[in-house]
Structure formats: structure tokens, C-alpha cells
């Protein structure tokens, strides 16, 4: 089966600066949760924004990004806008900051529907209430009119998820969706994402610096370092048989492996070109066998 998301030799450069993302290729199959891990500045969020077409005007993107076989690189802003919120969606770290404080939460969910579907106000409202129920907001019809600051952080992230998934997009990009939440709420949100993926067959690209999150829900994982994708492996392989020395260092600094809530340490060692080359060879071998 062809992958939902197919990124090939993608590179991103901001202005005249060095490449923020270099030659990244990865494929995510339908219904898969693919984790992208790395320290901040490793380029993982840049990839997310590149897929969504949300890079700033100064960014230059090359290579290929295909969504369900359709090339996204080179599409106009209006063509990308039609796809955002419909075929692909994205949620961000801080749910409180993701919602317009002056709009009711229900209207913000209905807005996604009405941006893409010619439905009546009442129809959009009914669908939004159903979505609120689906993401676990109790008494959804009554809370439709409430503004975001009347909800807790976890509830707000549920609303953001409902707004993002309102049109049942094929791809959901979740950029650090649980980082701002405390541990029990984190687990609930991850479970929600996992359940929605199973119910609707949504493909998820989960960006995180938290190995605990990876261990909890991801099927496969890509490790990024300084704009390069060092290795891709199943979650189990990554934790038990890491191929790249950087990944090993990551896991070593994080001895419990999939300890929930643990953050990636900054690995002080500089990675030489040789070690990267060796690691890339290992990655390619694995890809050839897999």
C-alpha cells in the first residue's frame, strides 16, 4: 500500500543560513503513529511545518513531500490552505495559546468544518457538539458556548484535537502535544490520539523530545539530530537494538528507556561526519532488510 505521507530528500533553509533540515526521507503508512524525536533545534518541527506549508516566507524548501501520492512542494498558499484542516491537520504544544480566547470553543471547532464544507451553521454546530463528545468533553451541547479560559489545560487540548480532526483528515501532525500538560493528563491525551487513530484510520506524525511518549504510543520512530534523520526503526527495535551511536547515547542518558515524562538530555558530544556516515550506513542496511 502506498504511504499516506512520503517525504523524499527534503531540505529546508532559512534565508541564507545553514540548512535546518538536510536530505530527510521518510514514509508513514496509513493508520501508523510515527514518532519524530530529537532535541530542540534538531529540525523536527521544521519538517512538520514544511508538510503543513506553514514555513515562514524566508524559508526555502526543496525535495518532495507527498500526501496520499499528491506532491505538496511547490503548491500555492491557497492550494495548501484548502488542504490544511481538511486532508492534513496539526496541533501544537500549548493548547491555551492555540485557541482564540474571545471565541467559544464550539465555534472554533465548527469553524474548521465551515472552512472546508458548504454546511449550514446549524449543521456545523451539531457536528462540533458530536466531536466535543467524541474527544471526551462532558455535557458538550451546554459547553459549546463557553470560551477557552473556562476549561482546564487538558480539556483545551481535547478541544484543539476536535478542531483539528473535525473534517477527519488523513494526516494529523502533533507537535509536542503533551509537553505543556502534567503527567496523568499527558497519558489521557495520548490515549485519545491513539483511540481516534484506530477509530478513523488517521495517520499520525508525533513530534516529541520525550522518549516516554514515544514508548507509549508510537509504532515507528525517527531520530533527528541537527537537521538530519539519523535512523528509523520500530519502537521496539529502537529501545532494544539502537543502530546509531547518537540514539544509543540518548537511551543511555535515559536508562529506564521508556520512562514516562523523561526529557531528552542534551548530548554534549559532537558527532563527526565519519560517525554519521557509519550510522547512515547502518540505517540503510536496516531499511534494505526491513
Amino acid at each position, binding site marked *: 500500500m502506498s504511504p499516506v505521507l512520503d517525504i523524499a530528500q527534503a531540505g529546508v533553509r532559512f534565508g541564507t543560513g545553514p540548512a535546518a533540515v538536510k536530505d530527510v526521507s521518510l514514509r508513514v503508512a496509513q493508520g501508523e503513529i510515527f514518532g519524530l524525536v530529537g532535541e530542540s533545534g534538531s529540525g523536527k518541527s521544521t519538517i512538520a511545518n514544511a508538510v*503543513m506549508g*506553514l514555513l515562514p516566507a524566508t524559508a526555502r524548501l526543496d525535495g518532495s513531500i507527498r500526501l496520499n501520492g499528491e506532491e505538496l512542494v511547490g503548491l500555492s498558499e491557497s492550494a495548501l*490552505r*484548502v*488542504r*490544511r*484542516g*481538511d486532508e492534513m*491537520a*496539526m*496541533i*501544537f504544544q*500549548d493548547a491555551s*495559546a*492555540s*485557541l*482564540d*480566547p*474571545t*471565541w467559544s470553543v464550539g465555534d472554533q471547532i465548527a*469553524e*474548521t468544518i465551515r*472552512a*472546508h464544507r458548504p454546511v449550514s451553521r446549524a449543521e456545523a454546530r451539531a457536528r462540533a457538539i458530536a466531536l466535543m463528545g467524541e474527544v471526551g468533553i462532558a455535557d458538550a451541547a451546554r459547553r459549546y458556548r463557553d*470560551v477557552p*479560559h473556562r476549561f482546564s489545560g487538558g480539556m483545551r487540548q481535547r478541544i*484543539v484535537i476536535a*478542531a*483539528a480532526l473535525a473534517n477527519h483528515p488523513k494526516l494529523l501532525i502533533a507537535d509536542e502535544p503533551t509537553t505543556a500538560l502534567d503527567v496523568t493528563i499527558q497519558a489521557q491525551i495520548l490515549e485519545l490520539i491513539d483511540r481516534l487513530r484506530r477509530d478513523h484510520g488517521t495517520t499520525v506524525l508525533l513530534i516529541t523530545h520525550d522518549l516516554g511518549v514515544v514508548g507509549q504510543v508510537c509504532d515507528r520512530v525517527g531520530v533527528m539530530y541537527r537537521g538530519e534523520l539519523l535512523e528509523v526503526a520500530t519502537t521496539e527495535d529502537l529501545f532494544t537494538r539502537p543502530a546509531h551511536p547518537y540514539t544509543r547515547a540518548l537511551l543511555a542518558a535515559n536508562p529506564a528507556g521508556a520512562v514516562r515524562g523523561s526529557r531528552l538530555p542534551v548530548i554534549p558530544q559532537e558527532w563527526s561526519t565519519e560517525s554519521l556516515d557509519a550510522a547512515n550506513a547502518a540505517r540503510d542496511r536496516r531499511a534494505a532488510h526491513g
Partner: protein
Amino acid sequence: MSRMLSFTLRRLLITIPVMLAMSVLVFMIIRLVPGDPVRTMLGFRATDANVAELRDQLGLDRSLLSQYLSWLGNLLQGDLGTDIISKAPLTELLAQRLPVTLELTGLSMLTAIAIGVPLGVWSATGGPLVRRLTEGFVILGISIPDFWLGIMLVLLFSGIFLLLPPSGWVPFAEDPVENLRRMILPVLTLAVGEAAYFLRTTRSAVGTVLEQPFVTFLRAKGVSPRRIVYGHALRNAGPSIVTVIGIQVGVLLGGAIIIETLFALPGVGRLVVTGITQRNYPVVQAGVLTIATIFIVVSLLMDLLIGWLDPRVSDAGTS
């Protein structure tokens, strides 16, 4: 709804001491006149009998507190006193004058908003050239004295192009079209300066909102740029814009005093100016009281509007 209701009640409660303070200030006008206010009012030709009569009529020989209380009592019954020159009841006079001032300031405010807010949005979303143009408008709008602008508009539209009458007023009920035609220049005169303030406020408020992270999420939802600007950024900028509108109401009412005189509009402001020139203190008091009341009431309405636009404001203090 109960949220807005309790917010409204709380805000109304704050207005009472403000109204009282204002009434004391207005009451004191005549009492603070140096020397003998009655002699000042009546001039040199007044006989002692005239002076005694007016002093008695104004109640100036009683204690200050009892004067204030009976004055306030009359006021609450809708009695603003008597014009000492024409002997006409002031409540009726003000009732004739008030609509003119309300029409002038109301239309000016609407015009200023209609010019300033869209230009502000344009400035916040446009390129460097747009920014320069709008900045030029702001500097000029703030720097041109409004009454001089009015004089120049008269020179242009009724001196050179003979399009509009230079001054004068026709009641709306008598001839609505002529009434509005005569309002064009005064309204434009007052609106240009105000529009500059609204432009500046809208530009910075909308600019700030567009940098918020929720705008990125709106883009990720596929919401159109137009809707992001008008549905979300402007809505979020609303409280800042309404706050400035509330402040500018005072400036506008002050400007109307000059503009009514310039264009010979029979409004409350012109009444006050004539009252001062003729030392007709009861007229001055009634006029000042009326304008100040408009100011306080409109400020109250603006605050309620902000509370309605921004739920965080009206929620504060309830929970």
C-alpha cells in the same frame, strides 16, 4: 447572561460616585466665581433690588450644603434651572440643543471609526508603502488643529467649489437631506483627527494579535486570511479599540464645543460658550452638566461593550 448582568450592576455602582463628583463640580461653578457672582452676572447697571432678587432665586444666601441638596433635588426631577437672561426654563432649552450635539458627535464618531479601523487593519497587514502612507495620515491627523481643518474645508468646499454651505443648521425633522448636507463639513472636521487615533490603535492591536500562536492554529485549520483578520484579529483587538473610542468620546465632545461655534450649529457646546461670554452661569452649569453626563454615560456603555467583547474582563471579580 447572569455574568453580563452582574458585571453591568457592578459597573453601574461605580458610576454613582462619578456622577456625584461631577455634580459637585458643576454646582461649585457659580460659587467659585471670585467676588460676587450675582453682580458679575448682572453687570454694572443692576440695582440692589435686582441683585437681591437673583440671589434669592439662585438660593445663594443659604448654606452651601442645603443649596447643593435642593439643587440636586431639582436636578433629579429634571429641573435644570432658569436662564437668567431670557428667563426660559433650561430643561427645555437643553432638550432643543442636545439632539444637535448628539447628531454631530455621533456621526463624527461613526465616520472616524469607518475611516480609522479599516485603514488600521490595512496598515497592520499591508507592506512598507502602506505603513508609510498610513503613518503620514496619523501624524497629519493628530497635528492639524481640528477647527483650522474645518476652516480649510469650508474654504475648499464652499469657497472654491461652492458645493456645500459654509455654516448653519436645519432641523432634521424639517428637511433631513439639508440637515445631513449641512452636517458633512462639521462631521468631517471632527472625524479626521479621531480617525488618526483609531488607525493607530487598530494597527498596533491587530498587529499584536496576528503574532499570537492561535493564528498559526487558525492557519493550520485552513481558515482564510480574510477571516483570520476580520473574524479573529479584529475581534481580539476589539477591547483595545473600544477603550480608545471611550477615551476619544471626551475629546470629541470637547472638539464639538469649538466646531459648533465654527459652523454655527445650535448645540450644547455653543450654548456653553455663549453662556460664558454673557456670564449666564445657570446656562453654563446646565450645558456642562449635560455634556459631562453624555461623557459618563457613553464611557459606561463602552465599558459594558468591552465586558461583552472580552469575557475575561467581565468574569474578573465574579469568580
